[in-house]
């Protein structure tokens, strides 16, 4: 397992060098993201000529159905995909750093399951049908799940050590999934609604959904982007972090708040899209190495590429129907992920 040293990791803090590869990578990722986002507005199950799409922005005609479709369907859908993707990627990166476990992600640590449980309860007992209603239930569920996991694992002298976080998360996940399944098996109607939310989908998301989750995700992204240094010291281990003068408990709480905001809002908006939070940080880590100050911006760009890209593919391959984005993020992401894992020396945390 002696891999050749990656050129990217050679970026020494000496200043006068050619632009570091990691910066170029970031620019390339941003460019790809723009392309994917544009494609998401341009193409879809309904065929609309490119010129008409441009007109929808430049010469908007409120009586033209195609224009309305672009503005009221494809735009919010793309925006929600970008937001949810960024949120999931960042949340996964933070959770992996906090739990010092590459398996940590909102899915495995119970946050998505908490959101799902509350939404099922909402559907079943409060006759919830609208997506904007899901948002609040999902949000409360994610927040409570995170609080429970963090609370249990931070009891005791050493506070929330990585192994306790991982176990508490897995246990909470198990409990929530069991309860959710229990509710679903008693009601065919709830199951019928839930199974389409549960795969994760961007279809039918309108501007109301965007505005209800936007503030949370923006705040979450801001906290996340500034927590790279904190996470780096946490990754060194509690003792080392303390020795460096880091307030470990406060650093954990700050990044924990970011996770709740990001996961809660994303899951509520698009359903529990699995795998993005797990895989994107891994891929980013292969590019950047373990430095969280680079990992976070890479995850911020790579995750929405995967989510929005998968959504575009899903709209095109099954015309006139579509395949849900949650199915395709895994179907597209997993082979790429496996190839990367196989092909290179995997960066440990």
């Amino acid at each position: 397992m002696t891999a050749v040293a990656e050129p990217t990791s050679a970026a020494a803090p000496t200043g006068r060098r050619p632009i570091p590869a990691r910066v170029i990578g970031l620019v390339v990722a941003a460019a790809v993201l723009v392309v994917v986002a544009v494609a998401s507005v341009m193409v879809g199950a309904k065929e609309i000529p490119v010129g008409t799409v441009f007109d929808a922005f430049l010469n908007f005609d409120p009586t033209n159905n195609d224009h309305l479709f672009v503005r009221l369907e494809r735009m919010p859908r793309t925006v929600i995909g970008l937001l949810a993707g960024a949120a999931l990627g960042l949340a996964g990166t933070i959770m992996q750093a906090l739990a010092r476990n590459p398996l940590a992600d909102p899915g495995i640590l119970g946050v998505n399951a908490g959101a799902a449980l509350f939404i099922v309860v909402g559907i079943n007992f409060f006759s919830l049908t609208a997506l904007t209603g899901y948002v609040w239930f999902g949000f409360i569920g994610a927040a409570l799940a995170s609080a429970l996991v963090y609370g249990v694992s931070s009891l005791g002298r050493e506070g929330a050590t990585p192994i306790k976080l991982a176990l508490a998360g897995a246990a909470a996940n198990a409990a929530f999934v069991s309860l959710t399944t229990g509710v679903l098996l008693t009601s065919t109607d709830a199951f019928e609604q839930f199974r389409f939310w549960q795969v994760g989908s961007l279809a039918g998301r309108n501007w109301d959904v965007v505005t209800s989750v936007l503030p949370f995700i923006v705040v979450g992204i801001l906290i996340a982007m500034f927590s790279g240094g904190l996470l780096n010291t946490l990754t060194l281990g509690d003792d080392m972090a303390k020795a460096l003068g880091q307030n470990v408990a406060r650093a954990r709480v700050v990044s924990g708040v970011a996770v709740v905001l990001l996961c809660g809002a994303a899951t509520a908006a698009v359903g529990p899209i699995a795998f993005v939070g797990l895989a994107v940080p891994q891929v980013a880590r292969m590019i950047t190495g373990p430095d969280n100050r680079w990992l976070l911006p890479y995850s911020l760009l790579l995750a929405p590429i995967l989510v929005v890209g998968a959504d575009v593919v899903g709209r095109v391959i099954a015309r006139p129907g579509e395949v849900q984005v949650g199915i395709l993020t895994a179907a597209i992401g997993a082979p790429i992920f496996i190839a990367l894992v196989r092909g290179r020396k995997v960066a440990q945390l």
Partner: protein
Amino acid sequence: MTAAAFDVSSIARTRARGRVRQVSVVGGLSLGVVVVFALSLVVGAAVISLPDVLSTLAGQGSRNTNYVILELRLPRALAALMVGVAFGLSGAVFQNLLRNPLASPDVIGISTGASAAAVLGIVGFGLTGIAISGLALGGALATAMAMYAIAWRNGVSGYRLILVGIGLSALLLSVISYFMTSAQVTNAQDALIWISGSLSDRNWNQVVPLLISLVVLVPVTLVLGRVLGMLGLGDDTARGLGVPVARVRLGLIIAAVALAGVATAATGPVAFVALLAGPIGRSLAKDGSPALLPSALVGALIVLVADFVAQHTPFLPNLPVGVLTGAIGAPYLLWQLARTNSGGQGG
């Protein structure tokens, strides 16, 4: 924990205490398993007294008790017991081998492989019964082989195996989701019950193959598992201690996959038993050992208790046992975590 006194007698005392603890943990868990097993034979739609149960097992029952005990309750209880042992053991082996408390067969894709094959059978071809079991076993084995083959690169590192497993698992989950959303809702609900793991209507057709497999697999796993503690020190150290690392690891993986596979084939992937039994077993043993036997017993206890509760929950007939394993095991693990934490010994 221990004071700074390092004289020989204190080491001997500590060791003796460790042995006593081991014996009492295994003894206590076994007792629990026997009690719940007996309860699930005695209690049911009609209570059959323990002497009657025993005489029926000895072959002197009436026609009525013969049917109820030998055809209904015994196969179900045996299935619960064995599935619990198999999942508990399999999970503990994977978690120790890959040195990650989250790396149970449910998380790294083996159960997902079994589920994907079974869901395809249920909603795609309308299969039932033993055909589903066969498909599930095939799915588990095929997933494990694919995982191992893909992760192989001059040997298999635990970390790469986990990551490949996660990738495959995500892929298979998306296959399951696709089948679930494209199927009729009633078919999908059948599939949901199967994926949760259910023990209702188990008969000897499922129990006998499971029994035969476990008679072979459990001793093999326990014997191979004796070196798990040494593998935990790192490959190089273990090799230095004379452990044939690559062969032992492959052997353990095969055994653990086979255990998860046969258990899943019998009842569906009873959720979370493999994930929860290991940590609970280890926290009971408290000696830092892999704690395979305690984990297996914990697994059996979880499934037996969960199935007992599932059978006798009012208003919810035929609740799949998998719904309760999480609801029972998870709070216990959380409580255990909270408790050991406040003692200052949490992981």
